[in-house]
Each structure stands twice: as structure tokens, then as C-alpha cells.
């Protein structure tokens, strides 16, 4: 085994030597056919063990070790043939100097790319292409490369097949709301990318969220699509010491949309109804509400960062009934992800959307219009406002409810203005 290893290593060495030769040749006359090519073809056709034998033979000959050729007459014959072939190639090259390697071979493809790239950016091929060329010529003919690749492919396919099989036979768990941990783990890299790289979200005050127990986050809503909810959830999941899952309450429009309906439920989000909110808080979950609703998310660009009406105060009633502390949250940066210049009521009616924004890119550019701008975001989580001091039936006290609603709205608005006052640039913070 060890003997074979050394022989293959030596073979590789000699091959690489040959390669450098051919590289120098090809740099001399790039269009000319590489003489090493047919030789390699010959060798490739022979079984691997034989190749190494040939190589050791050549090397040993070069080292002038006495090895009787008569022992392996067919090898001598082969070598002779190779020499003849090389000469033939040389003659052919002389006849057709414009001939180049076939484009369908890996090498030919590289030559083509290099040639093309050279025309555009001079000197482009020297680094990358050289490396690729080396990789193709050396590692590609090493069986261990293929074994390794096959092994990796096999394992990854096997684990995928296992997941798919489990999903198809229903052997997975969801909670009673449909939240699916596996699904969250699968989509998390994307949201993590959006959080860390795309919007470079800065989260402050995450320590205001207690490690456990019921909490109601009150968040401003903006940005045409509910990216703010996704980023708040991602942020708390990543940065909170207990990695709590935020249950955002979403509007009744989303369940009618294919894929989004599914995605929201599997990510643990819940439709905004009084029953759902109460049940979540009674289960001591971390719930987020966006009291502005469509009015907030569908804001025009000129109205940005001016909070809309905070619903009918349903969230305050929920908090009073369940004694859940309210935590104000201000998201800054989401308003500029899409620039809504106008709203079309006609299109909203036709498409069934709750609002239909007209932006410089939407709907004119189709799907491209959904790509958000890479603004710089910040999410500020305020201090909790406790609901303990109120009486038993405080949720029926409409004056108190409306007062608390307005108070929350003012707090969130002030937090937004405080952040905006510090912000120098929309895209760089």
C-alpha cells in the first residue's frame, strides 16, 4: 500500500514536471496544439496502476538505474509509440499552426475562457486560469479526488434523502401553531444574511426582553413588505441570550397567498386575532404586534417615519387582560427599502392586494421590483412598561385603553426620532 502511494506521488511529480513544460510551450504559442495532450490521452486509457509503472520506469531511467527492458517488452513498445505519436503531433502542428484544442474538453474550455478573458482584461488568465488548469490536469486524474468528491456527494445526498424521507412520511414535529424548527433552521441562513450583510442591522436594548415569560412587543410597521418583522425575529433569535422566538401577529391577507401562508406559519408567526394573541400570551410567549397594520406598512415615501393610527387598541386590551408587559420597538431603515411614490386603488382592487404601491421599480420591472434597497437598519428595543398596576377589569376601561395606546404610540415615535437624529446616511447609518 505504502509502496503504491510513493509510486503515485512520484508519478504525480513527473506529471507536474511535464505540465510545466507544456505550460511554457503553450505560453509561447497559445494557439498551437499542446503536444502533451495526446500523450496524456494514451496514458489515461491505460489502467492507473500501469501508468504509475510507466512513470516510475521513466523516472528510474532518468535516474539511470539498471532495469532490463526485456522484462516489460510491451512497456517499451508503448513508450516507443508515444515518441512516435509526439513526433506526429509536431508534424501536424507544423502543417496546421492554427489548430487549437477542442472546446468540449475541460482544457479546451479553459483555453477558450482564458482567450476571451484576455481580450477583455489583459493579464486576467495568469492567476486564476493557471490554477484551474493545474487543478484540472493534476487533481482531476487523481482517483482520490474523485473518491473524495463521491464520498462528499454521497453523504450530503444521503442526509438530504433522509430529511426528505422524514418530511414525506410525516416524521417531524410542529407545535400547535405549526412552528417547525427544522424549517426555521433551513431558512435561517437567508435571513441571517439579510440581517448581517444586507441591511447590517444594529440591535440595541435586546436585554430589555426578559429571558422568559409573556411579553408584547409593540413595533412600528414600514417598508411595503413585512421585512421588518422578519428582521426583528431574526435579530432576537440571534442576539438574545436565550434566543427567543418572536411570534409576530400578521394580517389576514397573508394566509391567502401561496407559499407565504406556509412560510409564515412554519416560522412560528400567527394570524392577528384576539383569540390567537391571548392564547400566545397565556402560553408565556414573546409576541410582536404591529398596531399600524396596512396603514403603516403601505405608507408613501413622503410619509416615512410618521406613525399611523395604532389600530383600535386591541393590543393594549390583550396586555391588560394577560398582564403582559409592553415593550416598544422602533425599526429605522425599513422605510427606505422600497420607495412608494403613490398607491393605486384600481390595481389593488384588481389584484386583491390591500394596497398597491407604485415605486420607481414596481410594478414596471416585475419581480425585480421586489428587491429591497440595501439601507442601513437599526432596531431599538425600549424599556418594558408593566401592566401590573391596573385593576381587574382594566381592559374594559376604554379611557385607560386609549390612553395607553396613545402613550405607546408616542414612545415609539420618540424612539424613531431619536434614532433619526443620529443617522447621517440612509445607506451607511
Amino acid at each position, binding site marked *: 500500500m505504502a509502496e503504491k502511494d510513493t509510486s503515485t506521488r512520484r508519478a504525480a511529480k513527473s506529471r507536474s514536471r511535464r505540465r510545466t513544460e507544456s505550460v511554457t510551450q503553450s505560453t509561447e504559442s497559445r494557439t498551437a496544439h499542446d503536444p502533451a495532450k495526446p500523450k496524456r490521452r494514451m496514458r489515461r486509457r491505460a489502467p492507473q496502476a500501469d501508468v504509475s509503472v510507466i512513470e516510475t520506469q521513466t523516472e528510474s531511467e532518468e535516474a539511470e538505474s539498471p532495469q532490463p527492458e526485456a522484462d516489460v517488452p510491451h512497456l517499451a513498445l508503448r513508450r516507443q509509440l508515444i515518441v512516435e505519436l509526439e513526433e506526429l503531433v509536431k508534424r501536424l502542428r507544423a502543417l496546421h499552426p492554427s489548430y487549437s484544442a477542442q472546446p468540449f474538453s475541460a482544457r479546451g474550455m479553459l483555453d477558450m475562457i482564458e482567450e476571451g478573458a484576455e481580450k477583455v482584461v489583459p493579464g486576467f488568465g495568469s492567476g486564476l486560469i493557471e490554477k484551474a488548469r493545474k487543478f484540472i490536469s493534476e487533481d482531476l486524474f487523481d482517483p482520490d479526488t474523485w473518491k473524495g468528491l463521491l464520498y462528499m456527494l454521497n453523504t450530503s445526498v444521503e442526509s438530504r434523502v433522509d430529511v426528505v424521507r422524514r418530511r414525506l412520511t410525516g*416524521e417531524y414535529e*410542529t407545535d*400547535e401553531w405549526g412552528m417547525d424548527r427544522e424549517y426555521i433552521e433551513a431558512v435561517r441562513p437567508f435571513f441571517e444574511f439579510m440581517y448581517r450583510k444586507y441591511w447590517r442591522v444594529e440591535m440595541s436594548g435586546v436585554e430589555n426582553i426578559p429571558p422568559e415569560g409573556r411579553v408584547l412587543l409593540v413595533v412600528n410597521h414600514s417598508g411595503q413588505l413585512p421585512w421588518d418583522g422578519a428582521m426583528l425575529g431574526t435579530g432576537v433569535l440571534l442576539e438574545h441570550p436565550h434566543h427567543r422566538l418572536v411570534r409576530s401577529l400578521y394580517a389576514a391577507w397573508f394566509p391567502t*397567498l*401561496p407559499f407565504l401562508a*406556509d412560510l409564515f406559519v412554519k416560522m412560528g408567526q400567527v394570524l392577528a386575532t384576539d383569540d390567537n394573541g391571548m392564547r400566545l400570551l397565556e402560553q408565556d410567549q414573546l409576541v410582536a404586534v404591529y398596531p399600524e397594520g396596512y396603514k403603516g406598512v403601505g405608507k408613501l415615501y413622503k410619509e416615512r417615519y410618521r406613525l399611523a393610527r395604532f389600530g383600535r387598541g386591541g393590543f393594549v386590551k390583550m396586555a391588560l387582560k394577560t398582564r403582559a408587559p409592553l415593550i416598544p420597538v422602533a425599526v429605522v431603515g425599513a422605510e427606505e427599502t422600497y420607495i412608494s411614490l403613490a398607491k393605486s386603488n384600481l390595481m389593488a382592487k384588481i389584484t386583491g392586494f390591500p394596497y398597491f404601491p407604485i415605486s420607481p421599480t414596481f410594478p414596471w420591472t416585475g419581480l425585480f421590483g421586489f428587491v429591497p434597497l440595501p439601507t442601513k437598519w437599526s432596531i431599538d428595543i425600549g424599556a418594558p412598561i408593566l401592566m401590573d398596576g391596573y385593576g381587574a377589569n382594566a381592559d374594559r376601561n376604554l379611557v385607560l385603553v386609549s390612553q395607553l395606546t396613545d402613550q405607546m404610540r408616542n414612545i415609539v415615535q420618540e424612539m424613531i426620532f431619536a434614532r433619526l437624529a443620529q443617522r447621517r446616511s440612509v445607506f451607511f447609518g
Partner: protein
Amino acid sequence: MPKAHVVLVTGVAGYWGNRVAAQLIEHPGWHVIGLDSDPPKEEIEGLDFIQADVRNPVLVDLLEQEKVDTVCHLAFIESFRSNEAAFDLNVMGAMKVLGACAATSVRKVVLKSSTLVYGAHPGNSAFLREEHPLQGCRRYEYIRDLVEIEAFCNGFRGQSPHVWLTILRFAHIVGPKVDTPMTRFLRQEQAPMLLGFDPMMQVIHEVDVRRALVHAVQHDVPGVFNVAAESVMPLARVMGLAGKPPLPVLHPLAYLGVTLLGPHYAPIELDYLRYPCVGDLSKMRAALDFEPHYTAEETLREFAAQQRLRHYLPESAAMAYDEERLRDTLERRRRSRGQPVATREPAPRPSRRRTKSQGQAHVKDGENGHG
């Protein structure tokens, strides 16, 4: 022997009436009268069977004369298409039975309904409580009829407060034997799923349905209750556990297909495959005090196992190897010829069918006399 309770089970020839009556008889102290327009296919020992339609106006006299205490109304036709005959039996039948109960000394009525009456809507809460408005779909006859019956019951409750009304709203019923819209859906060659939708679902085992109905007859629990198995799960998981790979279909195409081909191709209304329609079970646990035996996972795994086995069993396996049934048949034939009843086999097993009671023979004789 003093009969403390006289129960009238309607629709006793049907699947549910049959099972419920058979289980009620097993409890001593209960006299069970079965009512149906056709005699049950499988005779139930100890059942006091009366052949009549539930819409028969003489039902009032029957209830009065037999001193019926509780009525378990299970005569219902599960029809998909709009069907006047089904509507007449389901809705008019229920109205007439309830009317007759109000006019006599019947103490309580038990009805079987479904959580489908809430309807599947995008704005539905994740867990619908019993007070939720009934917005069930109007396209499928059986759901429409249930909604009609329940609407009538709401009025009835106010008009006749002396009759206790127990309505059990069951989730999708699944089981190896029963034929329900859900089992039909899962037994299809290709079960569709709407692409991009995966609503949460509840199921319940057929045995638990029977147990719940018997529980409601035996205990005084007036009110409306959602009844379902423990866990709630997405439709994809329901299908996975039931061993049915889903066929994803774009939802506009699916709706178009059902409109063109008719509801037989979609035993479950497509809205129920799109939006959640899940009942809140807290009232079932607290007020009804009923706990299902089977979890949803067990129910579906059992169904899947039975579906797999179905390919290997001979078609009439149940008939071919059921010696008890054959023995019963032989005995019946012997009796009808006037021969003495043969003595029992040496090792009697505790089985309902084999220990014949007098009631059955009595009813049988009575029928013969009439003929």
C-alpha cells in the same frame, strides 16, 4: 329489571348509529331502541329495533309510549352534491325529531356535527371556540346541512329550554373501517394539496367518535363541544403519516377542476385544504370531561398500516374467516325452522355476538308475526 334510561338511537342501520347502539347496550341499565327505515345489516343483540322513518309524525307517540329519556340522532346522509333527498332527511329529519322531543318528556338530545361548520377562512383564529360563527361552505351538501341543523338548534335552544341539547362537533374522522370525507380523501389514488398552502388540521379516530357519542348519551353535558384528538398538525404531515404522498396542485387550477368535474373529485372542500379550521378543545376537556384514546399520530399511523395491508388481504377476508358470524347465521336459520337452539360450544369466549339475549329473539318474532 328496572330500566333507568331509555335511549332512542336513530339511523341505527348506518355506521354510527350501529356502533353507538351496540356500545350502549353493553352498559347495564340502558334500554336501547333503534330506529331506522331499513333494518341494520348486522344484527345487534339486545337492540329493540323499530323500523320507521325519523320523519314519521307518529314518532311523537313512540317517544311518549316508550318513555324515551334520551335521543341520539344519528340519521344523516353524507352527500357531496346538492341533493334534495339528503337535505330532506338530514335537515327536515333533525327538525322533526327535535320537534317531537320538545313535545314529549324527552330530557336530552345528542347530535353529531363537525368542525367543518365553522368554515375554512383566512381570518380564522388558530383555535376556534364553540361560539365562533358558523360560516361553513355552502357548496357541499353535507356541510350545508350541518350548518342548517346547527342554526335550527340555536333557535330551538331558546324555544325549548327543557330539552338539553348536546352537539358534538368532530374534527376530520379517520379510521380503518369508516367511510368519511377525510378517509375518502386519503384513500384516493392521488390526493391533492394546494401548492404553497399547508393548513393545520385536526383528526379524530372513529373509535373515539363512538366513545364521545356514548359519553354524551350517558352523562348530562348540555352544550356544544369541539371533539378532536390531541395534536394539531399541518396537512402535509397528516398525509405523510397516513402514507399518502401529496400531489401539489396550483390552487386556481384545483378550484377550476372541482368546478368542472364536480365535488366527487375532492371529498374535502378545497378551502379546508387552504385555510385552517381547527377547534379549540379546552371546553371538551373541562366541561365535557372527555379525553380521546387515540392521538392524531396513532390514528393516522393505524390508518396507513391498514391501507398498506389492504393490498394483501383477500377482498372478503372479514367475511371468510369470521366464524362467529357464520355461527350466528346458522343459529338464526335453525331457529326460523323451529328447531331448538343448539347448545354452546365447549369453550365460550366473552363475546357480544355469541351471547344471545332475549330481546333480539323477541323483536325477530314480533316482526315475523307482523309479516
